[in-house]
């Protein structure tokens, strides 16, 4: 460890750390636009400039992101000179930036906006018109670029070169007419991690076309969650409308919709990034929901459906259960506690890769597109490829929990209980259908392919006609107790 001083305060740094890293490790955030802990150091924004106290007469200042800490280094972050340089740099940065926070989607979470208030705050010194550049440049099908707001920090360019490896972005032209543009020989649309550049962008230059003009960020709140898109189980934040900003006049569904998804830092799983599939969780979750319990297609009360399911289980001789690989560890444990002795249970694959979907890559994407198969397989065996081995002809009851199982594979004459969150045609064909909650409506944990357990929390309230799978299992087991054959129910 090396000791250095930041504004006179002694701090410890590790060998090889730069001043900005060491200060950060000590809880001091030196202002920066272009620096990022996971990316290379271009040192182009110049806002992290610090003064160094030394014996010479000439002032010594340099960028802290590229300055190695040396023993006894006296860094001044808040000296008059350092403050002046920051103010001047902010004046340069905002010179041609439109400062149109009022209509900018980034407003409220914009680094430039924060720094402007913190380090400059003055009106523009320039009397001349700002330079103009392309507005609304479609960088890809997902991302809109506003070149006037761009401050050329090149975070997005470096991200595509160093993290996503698509090499899809670059800078063209020189000077104050430099523009970020897609590389001619690369396809930014094919970059599975492209949306990360939206989060990286310290200004409102790179904008999600999905969220563009959709909502101000201060109306939204993040809820910690886990992406169910594949077995990686990346930690994410699901952004949805704050309760206090609930819409009363417009479509009430907007109060319970996923507005955007951003990565939540988790070094053990996904680091700082997520892929575009996680960004599109809304498409995955906001499909038509199953909201009504049914008995052979006829709507019944939820409690009635649960009772009917219990009767079916109680009367069956050779029941089989197909367990969802999207169930949380808690649900799987509840299922195991309730039915392990009574049903032959197998873990089924709920989701298989869609046509054209990337199976696996160098960074995050894994081939199994279910979030908790590992957690489920810890309790139950996998469903064999030859389904007939599990669903033997003498099977007289099949409990299907979750999506992705074709009803045609169920032996003739077997009764069917289905639990699903989404509306499917085969729901009505089941003898009993019970609608269950979605990941965004409950809390729980998933175990990823690596064995790392991550938690997710509920974002939205549950409708009364829908039940949590966990409570459905508990209710069924309670109902079994109450039915005539209570003695045959084995306590586990």
């Amino acid at each position, binding site marked *: 460890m090396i000791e250095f001083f930041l504004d006179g305060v002694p701090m410890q740094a590790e060998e090889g750390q730069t001043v900005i890293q060491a200060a950060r490790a000590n809880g001091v955030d030196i202002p920066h636009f272009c620096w990022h802990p996971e990316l290379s150091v271009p040192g182009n924004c110049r806002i992290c400039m610090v003064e160094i106290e030394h014996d010479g007469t000439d002032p010594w200042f340099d960028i802290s992101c590229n300055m190695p800490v040396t023993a006894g280094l006296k860094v001044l972050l808040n000296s008059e000179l350092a403050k002046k340089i920051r103010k001047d740099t902010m004046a340069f940065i905002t010179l041609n930036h439109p400062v149109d926070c009022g209509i900018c989607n980034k407003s409220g979470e914009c680094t430039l906006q924060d720094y402007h208030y913190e380090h400059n705050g003055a009106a523009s010194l320039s009397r001349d018109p700002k330079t103009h550049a392309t507005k609304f440049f479609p960088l890809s099908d997902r991302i809109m670029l506003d070149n006037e707001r761009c401050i*050329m920090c090149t975070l997005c360019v470096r991200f595509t070169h160093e993290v996503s490896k698509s090499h899809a972005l670059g800078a063209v032209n020189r000077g104050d007419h430099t523009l970020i543009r897609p590389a001619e020989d690369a396809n930014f649309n094919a970059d599975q991690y492209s949306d990360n550049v939206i989060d990286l962008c310290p200004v409102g230059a790179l904008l999600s076309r999905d969220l563009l003009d959709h909502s101000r960020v201060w109306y939204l709140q993040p809820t910690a969650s886990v992406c169910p898109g594949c077995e990686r189980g990346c930690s994410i934040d699901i952004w949805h409308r704050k309760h206090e900003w609930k819409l009363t006049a417009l479509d009430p569904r907007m109060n319970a919709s996923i507005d955007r998804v951003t990565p939540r830092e988790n070094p053990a799983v996904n680091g700082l990034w997520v892929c575009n599939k996680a960004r599109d969780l809304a498409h995955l979750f906001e499909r038509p929901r199953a909201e009504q319990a049914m008995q052979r297609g006829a709507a019944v009360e939820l409690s009635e459906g649960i009772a009917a399911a219990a009767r079916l289980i109680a009367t069956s001789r050779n029941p089989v259960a197909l367990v969802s690989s999207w169930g949380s560890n808690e649900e799987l444990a509840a299922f195991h506690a309730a039915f392990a002795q009574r049903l032959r249970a197998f873990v089924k694959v709920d989701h298989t890769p869609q046509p054209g979907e990337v199976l696996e890559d160098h960074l995050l994407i894994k081939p199994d597109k279910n979030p908790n198969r590992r957690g489920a397989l810890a309790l139950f065996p996998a469903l064999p490829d030859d389904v007939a081995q599990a669903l033997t002809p003498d099977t007289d009851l099949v409990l299907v929990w979750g999506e992705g199982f074709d009803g045609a594979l169920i032996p003739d004459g077997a009764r069917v209980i289905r639990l699903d969150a989404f509306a499917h045609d085969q729901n009505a064909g089941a003898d009993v259908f019970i609608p269950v909650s979605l990941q965004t409506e409950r809390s729980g944990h998933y175990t990823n392919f690596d064995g790392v357990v991550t938690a997710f929390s509920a974002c939205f309230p549950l409708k009364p006609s829908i039940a949590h799978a966990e409570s459905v299992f508990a209710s069924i087991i309670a109902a079994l107790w109450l039915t005539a054959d209570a003695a045959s129910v084995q306590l586990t």
Partner: protein
Amino acid sequence: MSDTVLTTAPLSGTKFFMNFPITATSHSLADYKARGGYQALEKALREMQPAEVTKEVSAAGLLGHGGAAFPAGRKWGVVKLGDGEPHYVCMNADEGEPGTFKDRWLLEHVPHLCLEGLIIGSYALQGRHAFIYIRGEFDLSHRRMADAIEEAYDAGLLGENILGTGYSCDVVLYRGAGSYVCGEASAMLASLEGKKGWPRNRPPRLTVKGLYQKPTVVNNVETLANVPVIISRGAVEFKKVGTPKSPGTQMISISGHIARPGVYEVEYGYPWQKFIYDDCGGMQGGATLKCIIPGGVSTKLLSAKEMEPLTLDHNSALAGGSQLGSGGMIVIADGTCMVRLAQVIQRFYHHESCGQCTPCREGMGWMERILNRIVAGGGRPEDIDRLYQISTANDGTTICSLGDSAGYACSAILDHYREEFEYFITHKRSMYDGRLVVDDPFSGTLATTGARA
């Protein structure tokens, strides 16, 4: 006045480069060898160890001729021989500083001397490959250098086992694409690597991590051309030329309102006054000297009075408040509008700012817009302070030194000729209207040139 021009004695002093008559074939290998060419290479390869070459260059006190005047030997000495890494030597022939065109002369007329210097330098650093980054606009220079390389390969002076000594070196000739900033060493290496020509932050220095992240020495054409001279003459002899602190000669390219513009080789320490008024024939049309930009537009200009006591060497120029830079001298006559001069210079910097780091990217355009507005008659009194403020905010805060120099150029003009700016802002017109007061050689009466109405 015109008589004095004709009777001026030719430039005296030692010549390292301009010491032969230029003919149609004087640049060829045969002619170069006849003048004693490639003997230094033979000497270095056969009689000297690599470290001895570096030692000799250090002992000669050879200064970089690209503008910063950093001792070449010290730069070479940083590269550790035998560290297991490949080393590279790059010849920086991307001569783009306005007012500087000395390297062009060297590349066109003594390409083999430059090449010899490069090979010796490469030998001193034990590089297997050497690079020449040549300015894209230099057509003849490029052809001459390409021919020279071909001739050298044919004569066994390049490639495998040079002159049977066991040392091998290949030279890569690379043409730039017209960017000023690629003359900055780290931007040049980025461009060589096939990337956008953006300068890089130091540390690490290029001698630690340069081209392809390997130790690299980037030297100006003239610096490398001096190397064979040092090797063949010996450091002691070399030091006898010039001044103790600036040994050797400097190629000066002089342009502007001067009677005989062109490239001159002068010994360091040559009196400035004598150089301009005697050797270069004095001012064009007998005009009065207003000021001089001593070493390319990036150096601070000096007024006629400031220039008077100075000699042509780095220390003297520094003492005078400027730099000798790359020896690209621009002579400016009385009657030149300094506001417009600042505008032209700033237009250049705005156009050539690479756009990487904030102060230069935004500041250059800002300064140009302010100057454009002043010239268009829309100047405001606060503009002068604003120009100063931008220059100061640029100073030392940019990645490469081009940002600083742009500020120096403007602030030096403001320091000297603030009243012209004030005049322009108040009267919405130039103090001079762009007319030079000269002695018209045809009529013998005072007349104006330039905007001849």
